[in-house]
């Protein structure tokens, strides 16, 4: 007779035993269940055969450490314990909603960016608008010609003053938002539209529908200084690490590449450091962890729906979580160990996760079509999201800023006030 040994790794006997023998009662009529409790309750439901287990401990206990204080080593942890602080309230609905007519509903584009000077740039069709968060004022930066547009990507330079605009005709325009002047046009680096961009000091990295990634030194005439080849299809995600040493790129070929500056070559295309092929759908969502170097989060499109975590030093996949829907964008909190993802069908929600447990902390709904674009305020407290439902929403998801800004309840259609050249 074969003895059946069930897979115990999927069960949590601890929790089961605890719930069965200890004081805490499950509140059956609880209508609002915390995500953490829900996770444990699921494990409880999977439990079997608690009767067949006996728990033993050694009679003689190990000696207690002689030192009164733990060694230096353990206090080097990056996460100091804080005294219990009140859990912050995360509003489930957007704090503010603005109209964004003509916002292109294309998964592969990157039409929203929030600059360090606290100005949000958004591309609606052929026009780029700037929304100043400090006084909620709107201005038009540029409207491109029909044959060159629509605008396919926007990216603020680190100085928060210069801004790059990628176009459908494969060109990239560089503007000075302070003087509203165009500085130059980058041509010849791509053969089709530029849907993704990322800045690294004076280098503007552009990703094209042609699968190419180009490093452009915007200060010099011959701006193409490096090319990364590897993607077979459109490059829709592009992010430099905080140190500027590594670049993560995601493509419609379902591949994520990690490129390292140390492998740079000026006369031939640079080889990637890692090629990560675990996603089964386009990867646009990329986010480098602010509190752990070499940790990258990636999100897969409709056929994949997972968020994966990578050690970009070794290329190892550390974790993979099924979110249930297309992942359009990812943002790490600058204040807490939390990750925010934006999704498509069916809920079009923004989900806030606790890291590393990946327990859901909040789900923010409101968008009525996929939440394709997300950007974070420079103070790290607010997130802006935009969708094909032609709305731009602001969420106080990462915490309330120290100085409360009394935002005037302005008209809800700032962009329609301006004349649009059709």
């Amino acid at each position: 007779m074969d003895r059946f040994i069930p897979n115990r790794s999927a069960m949590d006997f601890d929790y089961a035993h605890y719930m069965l023998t200890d004081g805490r009662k499950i509140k059956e009529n609880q209508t609002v269940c915390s995500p953490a409790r829900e996770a444990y309750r699921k494990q409880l439901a999977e439990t079997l055969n608690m009767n067949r287990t006996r728990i033993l401990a050694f009679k003689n206990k190990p000696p207690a450490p002689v030192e009164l204080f733990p060694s230096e080593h353990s206090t080097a942890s990056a996460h100091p314990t804080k005294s219990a602080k009140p859990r912050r309230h995360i509003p489930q609905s957007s704090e503010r909603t603005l109209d964004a007519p003509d916002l292109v509903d294309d998964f592969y584009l990157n039409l929203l960016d929030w600059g360090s000077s606290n100005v949000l740039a958004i591309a609606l069709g052929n026009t780029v608008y700037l929304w100043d968060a400090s006084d909620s004022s709107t201005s038009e930066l540029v409207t491109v010609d029909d044959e060159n547009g629509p605008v396919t990507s926007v990216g603020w330079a680190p100085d928060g003053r210069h801004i790059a605009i990628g176009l459908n005709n494969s060109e990239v325009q560089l503007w000075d938002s302070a003087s509203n002047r165009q500085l130059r046009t980058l041509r010849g680096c791509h053969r089709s539209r530029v849907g993704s961009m990322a800045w690294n000091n004076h280098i503007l990295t552009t990703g094209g529908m042609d699968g190419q990634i180009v490093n452009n030194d915007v200060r010099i005439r011959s701006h193409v200084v490096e090319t990364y080849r590897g993607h077979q299809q459109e490059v829709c995600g592009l992010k430099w690490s905080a140190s500027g040493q590594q670049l993560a790129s995601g493509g419609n070929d379902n591949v994520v590449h990690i490129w390292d500056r140390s492998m740079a070559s000026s006369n031939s295309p640079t080889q990637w450091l890692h090629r990560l092929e675990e996603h089964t759908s386009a990867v646009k969502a990329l986010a480098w962890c602010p509190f752990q170097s070499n940790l990258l989060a990636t999100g897969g499109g409709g056929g994949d729906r997972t968020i994966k975590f990578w050690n970009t030093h070794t290329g190892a996949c550390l974790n993979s979580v099924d979110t249930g829907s297309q992942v359009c964008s990812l943002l790490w909190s600058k204040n807490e160990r939390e990750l925010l993802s934006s999704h498509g069908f069916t809920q079009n929600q923004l989900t806030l996760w606790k890291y590393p447990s990946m327990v859901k902390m909040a789900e923010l709904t409101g968008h009525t079509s996929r939440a394709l674009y997300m950007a974070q305020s420079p103070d790290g407290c607010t997130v802006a999201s935009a969708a094909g439902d032609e709305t731009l929403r602001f969420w106080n998801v990462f915490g309330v800023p120290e100085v409360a800004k009394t935002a005037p309840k302005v008209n809800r259609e700032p962009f329609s006030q301006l004349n649009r050249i059709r």
Partner: protein
Amino acid sequence: MASRTVAKDIITLRGSAAIVSEFFGYAANSILYNRGVYPEESFAKVKKYGLPMLLTQDEGVKSFITNLTAQLSENEIVGKEWLEAGKLQRVVMVIMSKATKEVLERWNFSIETDSDVVEKGVSREKSDREIMREIQAIMRQIASSITYLPCLDEPCVFDVLAYTDTDVPVPFTWIESDPKLIANPQMVKLHSFDTKIHKVDTLVSYKNDEWDEQ
């Protein structure tokens, strides 16, 4: 394209049990070192699994862990030892506050045993090197866990629990215990390794340092 043939080694039940109990010994030491339960100076470096591993030199701790791993892999008193008989379900290392005895961290090593091997005494094949690599990955994860585990900045003590089948007689050096659980823990699953006879999963749960979500 050249084909890669990986040399596989024969794994017996006894051999696998030895690998698992040895793994546990090193993992326990690594946890005690990395979590700062005992002072750094009381550990010495040895080479194992292709990594520098720390082993305690404190006689009391050393003998505790040795007795423990011996129990898992060779026990003349009971007869057939727990791992070989497939009776060991998991080994849990708990780290508690020395002052309050509150459980702060729980390192859970679940063990799944291939019943065919236990019943019929067959052996399996897997490359030693591959098992080594799997264990190496876990050891690396234990070492890097300090980046997200809360700081243990009070003196701590540790204990080890063994979850066994009920039909195993309790050896006289062991007593029945409560599971020493953490209320509302945060849990992180680490890598697992598989000798094809025993599969070991690692999970660390720790005290949530924020209020419970309602």
